[in-house]
């Protein structure tokens, strides 16, 4: 794993049931803390985007992509609740940000994943038109 990334990091929030058992008061506090955290990172220019995810959607599988099922039904402790795309240069900085996540205190987890330097898909996409030209 690279300690540095020019393409930033994805902070993936895992756990979708950690708010169970919190009082409305505590829930409100976490929501407020989280908003303040996101706002601060935006002001510092460290986060490019972030989205929450609906708890379930569709899972597509099968060799021909014909199996479409409701899901995921992963254990809710591991389920992805949302993500931040942070644009810092080193994994240490990304980890430092992740450590401030207000959900941690209640059992949420944050996964930090560097975005790959060179996207093979992007380079393939760029290469194909050339091939097409060569054949023409």
């Amino acid at each position, binding site marked *: 794993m690279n300690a540095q990334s020019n393409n930033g990091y994805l902070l993936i929030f895992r756990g*979708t049931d950690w708010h169970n058992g919190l*009082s409305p008061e505590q829930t409100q506090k976490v929501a*407020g803390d989280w908003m303040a955290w996101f706002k601060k990172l935006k002001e510092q220019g460290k986060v490019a985007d972030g989205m929450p995810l609906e708890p379930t959607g569709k899972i597509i599988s099968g060799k021909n992509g014909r199996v479409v099922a409701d899901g995921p039904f992963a254990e809710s402790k591991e389920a992805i609740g949302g993500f931040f795309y942070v644009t810092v240069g080193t994994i240490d900085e990304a980890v430092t940000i992740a450590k401030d996540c207000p959900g941690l205190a209640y059992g949420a987890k944050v996964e930090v994943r560097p975005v790959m330097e060179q996207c093979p898909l992007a380079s393939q996409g760029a290469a194909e038109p050339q091939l097409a030209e060569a054949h023409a």
Partner: protein
Amino acid sequence: MNSTEVNKEEPQGVSELVEHLFRHEGAKMVATLTRIFGIEHLTLAEDVVQEALARALQTWPFYGAPKNPAAWIMRAARNLALDVVRREKVFREKEPEITRLVEEGNSLQDKVVFREEEIADDRLRMLFVCCHPLIPAEAQVTLALKALGGFSVGEIARAFLTTEAAIAKRLTRAKQKIRDARIPFEIPTGEQLGGRLDGVLQSLYFLFNEGYKASSGANLVREEICHEAIRLTGLLAEHAAGNVPKTHALLALMLINTARLPARQDSDGNLLLLNEQDRTRWDQAMIARGMFHLAQSAAGEEITEYHLEAGIAACHSGAKNYASTDWRRILELYDQLVEFDDSPVVALNRAVALAEVHGPQAGIEAVSASRNLTSLESYYLLYAVLGEFESRLHHAHAAAAHFRKSLQLAEIKSEQVFLAKRLEACEEEAR
């Protein structure tokens, strides 16, 4: 989710959210959904609201709080309720009502989602259910805090110095009782109303005292309980069913006493006696509200304990300092109060007022003359009061003995610190 539908405003910090928004809006929604689902499905209503709050928690941090957070929560809860109703067969016949409600709410957009009166009615129905005479007194208060106040099981357990399991069990039993006894979700009318209203007032008084009797720095929930009691009593006082002089008297006593809470401890959370308190920290606006309701309470013929206690609180709050307190008037009020309530705690309070008027020796005599004193044997305040009287008479040995006993019985840290300080001073004097 289609991202173009989302209003992507700059996220707001916690300071911009209304204080206690989730708790208060959530509790209102629980009452309304309970009316729709039926009281036997109270837990379901609570779960739906909890889920709505969780939705807010998941989306607000990313997109920012909506312009009208209360309406947002209401709408989320309504839509979730609709899901539940469509899923559960039991509710098949209720689907049209819920659908109507959702459509009504959505057409009103972010303005007033439900009419305030409608919400108030639902909350009062819930209050009458929670305070139903078939439910034991302790459980009434627990249920009211959970269903009407939006407190969590953990918070209630901490406030009552008990375990979460004990509170959860109490709630389960109370809800079972509601189902078994088929307690209706309604505001009683006609002849029933008077008796039931007395019960509700008594429960609210009990609820208030639970919060008031020992508010310590480590336990802020207790102060919140006082405010919840005020909120619920205020709701009752504004409604035709509860707008009677004694409701105003109860509200007055709550307001005037709560106004003095901020001065009751120093910055380290240590208890301060009335004569040590910084009276500028008393909440004058709240006292004024209390005085307004005290005036309202004088309308009828009837005088209740609430009137007398509110009168006593008013005497204290009207005094510029301890020395100028009108102890004679307070003693008169206590003399009347013991006629209503022969509890040893009231007798003890009366003895304190008596000692201010006629001296500490008279106070000691009044305490020993009071009936059923034995039930106070393990009450720390009895010894704290006796210690204070003896100390004023410069009987340092006797005073120290009382404070020592009181210290052994006190359960709350700020009280223990206070008593230890008094004990030390007396021991020093005795040397």
